[in-house]
């Protein structure tokens, strides 16, 4: 351990604002050669923003970024790469039609006479890097069909070929199997021993202690503490990450004595999730928790029908629903507020009014026709009910803030008076004030008798909203907690540890 030396990279006092949202208030981290430094914190703690500063994608509004003592400014990803900082994303962007070696050396291919590409040299160089990383990957195969783990290895190989001194790994393990995680860690150890500084972002604390020498905790965009992993433990890290009294729902659990409204039986989709069974009663809020990549959103989309499952059954009010058909699910009263608001929830270039009305076109017909005025009135009613802040309903929905966009998606579904509403990451990327409003709306819906299934990576949100909490890990249900007995620590444990946790 080289704690006495100066850091390779040092970030201090970094701030980043997006309009009213303060994504980063005080970003601070020092990375040392030959060491892995973990960055942990809940979703929204500012980790991603910090990573994007290292990647050259965001320019901080304030703060200093120094490399080997010299202050630098990254204006583009190229600047970052040239300064020796490489970022490995959870899902790398590769060229699927090109070979692995070409992906590594794109536009820097070794050349022979007449500037021709030296394929043999290139493949050998790639092989040499893989040998150094101690992985067995054929440089001549196409990138098409590489697993995420293999794609990450290719990215790491690319950053090594660029002689990166700092490698940032942004939640690399979220979508990996345990075998793949082991391999990645072996690679990371090799990198460390060759003097590379690693910034490792993960939700899995056990991984932090396995791989890293230091750990920094962030909360609400601020640096909280930094420590050697040898001098701290999981419990104190979790306390530092949570760091506040968790607000709890005060009202009593409802729906437990009612008959289940949404029933999911043995739902299986090969490769994504298996044997998922649970139910949600009218008036009950059930949370589906777990790490990103555990298969939660996949289950939600399968219930709603945009994804076809292989086996199992989905029933609403006892009646089975045709699989693979969103319109059948909607006819049965299911609604889905999807995970990716911009890609799945909204048609960004269309008007606010059109987006709110999108699920209700048929019911807006008068004598067979929809008139814009009917649509606008309908949208105006719901905008008032949900307190959506907008300039003009005819403006495209892309003019709204993230929070108001999310309310538009909620309005689309609430206006259909659903029996079952699934909300996937309902408050991701929206400001605190609107967040509270969205929570209130979800609870009101439940109060009015809707069965609500919430998917969230934010534990305070889960604890605040849910009557019951289901935990998924690697495509399976591994735990169930009642509102009264659930704690952040218990949920994190169930979501990350490999042994099954059953709460009494």
């Amino acid at each position, binding site marked *: 351990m080289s704690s006495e030396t100066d850091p390779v990279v040092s970030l201090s006092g970094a701030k980043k604002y997006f309009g009213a949202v303060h994504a980063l208030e005080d970003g601070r981290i020092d990375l040392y050669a030959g060491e892995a430094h973990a960055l942990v914190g809940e979703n929204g703690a500012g980790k991603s923003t910090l990573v994007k500063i290292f990647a050259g994608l965001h320019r901080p509004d304030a703060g200093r970024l120094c490399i080997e003592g010299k202050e630098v400014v990254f204006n583009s*990803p*190229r600047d970052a790469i040239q300064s020796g900082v490489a970022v490995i994303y959870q*899902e790398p*962007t*590769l*060229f*699927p*039609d*090109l070979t692995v070696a*070409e992906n590594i050396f*794109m*536009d820097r*291919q070794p*050349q022979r006479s007449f*500037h*021709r*590409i030296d*394929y043999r040299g290139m493949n050998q160089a790639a092989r040499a890097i893989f040998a150094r990383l101690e992985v*067995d*990957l*054929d440089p*001549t*195969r*196409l990138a*098409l*069909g*590489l*697993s*995420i*783990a*293999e*794609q990450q290895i290719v990215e790491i190989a690319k950053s090594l070929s660029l002689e990166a001194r700092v490698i940032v790994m942004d939640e690399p393990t979220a*979508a990996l*199997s345990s*075998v*793949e995680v082991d*391999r990645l860690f072996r690679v990371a150890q090799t990198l460390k021993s060759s003097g590379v500084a690693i910034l490792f972002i993960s939700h899995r604390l056990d991984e932090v202690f396995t791989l890293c020498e230091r750990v920094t905790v962030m909360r609400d965009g601020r640096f909280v503490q930094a420590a050697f992993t040898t001098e701290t433990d999981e419990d104190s890290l979790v306390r530092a990450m949570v760091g506040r009294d968790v607000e709890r729902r005060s009202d009593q659990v409802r729906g437990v004595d009612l008959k289940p409204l949404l029933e999911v039986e043995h739902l299986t989709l*090969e*490769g*994504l999730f*298996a044997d998922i069974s649970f139910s949600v009663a009218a008036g009950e809020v059930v949370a589906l928790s777990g790490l990103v990549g555990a298969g939660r959103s996949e289950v939600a989309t399968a219930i709603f029908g*945009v*994804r076809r499952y292989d086996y199992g059954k989905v029933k609403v009010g006892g009646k089975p629903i045709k699989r693979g058909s969103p319109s059948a699910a909607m006819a049965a009263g299911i609604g889905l507020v999807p995970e990716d608001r911009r890609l799945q929830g909204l048609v960004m270039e269309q008007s606010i009014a059109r987006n709110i009305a999108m699920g209700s076109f048929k019911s807006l017909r008068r004598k067979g026709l929809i008139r814009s005025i009917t649509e606008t009135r309908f949208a105006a009613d719901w905008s008032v009910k949900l307190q959506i802040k907008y300039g003009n309903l005819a403006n495209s929905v892309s003019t709204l803030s993230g929070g108001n966009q999310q309310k538009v998606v909620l309005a689309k579904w609430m206006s259909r008076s659903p029996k079952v509403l699934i909300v996937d990451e309902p408050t991701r990327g929206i400001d605190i004030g609107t967040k509270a409003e969205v929570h209130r709306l979800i609870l009101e819906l439940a109060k009015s008798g809707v069965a609500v299934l919430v998917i969230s990576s934010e534990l305070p949100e889960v604890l605040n909203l849910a009557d019951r909490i289901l935990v998924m890990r*690697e*495509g399976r249900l591994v735990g169930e907690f009642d509102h009264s007995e659930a704690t952040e620590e218990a949920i994190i444990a169930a979501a990350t540890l490999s042994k099954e946790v059953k709460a009494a």
Partner: protein
Amino acid sequence: MTLLEQNSQNNSARTGSSPTGVPGGASKFTSLVFRAREFGIFGILIVFVLLTTAVKPRFLAAQNIKFILIDTTIFALLALGETMVVISKNVDLSIGSILGISAFVSSNLYQQFHHISIVIVFGVGIGIGLALGVVNGVLIAFGRVPSLVVTLASLYIIRGLDVLIVGGRQVVASSLPSNFISVTSASFGAIPVISIVVAIIVVGGAYYLKNYRSGRDLYAIGSSEQAAALVGIPIAKRIFTAFAISGAIAGLAGVIWASYYGTIDSTAGTGYEFTVVTAVVVGGVAIVGGSGSAIGAAIGALLLNTINSSLYVLGVSAFWDQAISGLLLILAIALDRGLGLYVAKSLRKRSSRVAS
């Protein structure tokens, strides 16, 4: 294909993890399937030639081979330019019009200057094509307008210009000097000299695309523009160059066309754009960009012309020719898609076996 499908396909292709212990297994398999696609087209060609020859041995008579090769030559040349464009996830519909205007203007030089050098004639033809390709390239690469729309517009504009220039005139074979005619009439036995020259150009083009960074950049752009931008590939410059070259090649093809047909009016090359795109796609170049080779495209052009000729020789009505090329194109893209899905699915199967 809908966005949704495409995403889920991508996902399944991406998430389909192969067993960590045996990464070689999946790789060999994938490469093999895709290589099969490139050789498959050649196989079909051979089968066609053999079957036709078995029934009618005169199919391989020198004169017939010569006809097939000359026709193929022009399309194979155009297919080289189109390949560069399609690989980068674009399309050039203006090549037929460029060929037409180049054919007339270059050969018409002989009416005005009786003793003009053939080099100048070729230079003018290529120059016209290059200039028009540059205009296409500027509008597409720097104006950020879809190539489908720009080249559709230039298809019309160039043909309109051609009509204005040609007026009621026509170039006739008797006005062309023998050294110009002999560009396409000279041959080594059954093989026209021009076919050999074009074959060298096509092989050279394919070699460039395979062995030079700027050539690989076109594949990279077509494969994933986002990744290309992250790597720092000069996307606009490369796409511009591809269109400029495609234009120049169409200009060259125009001069060859003039030499071969001898009679040139304002309709030369009409409708060639779709024939060439068909040849390119049948030859294994993905219409969605990122893969394929100029040699494959040339074989595609040869296959289309061979089928045409063998129908004739077999006494099947030549009327079947068009229908067969259309069907071939659809089969080719369906096959590509099928292979893609098959690979993705088998990779997913492998992964789930590991997971469970």
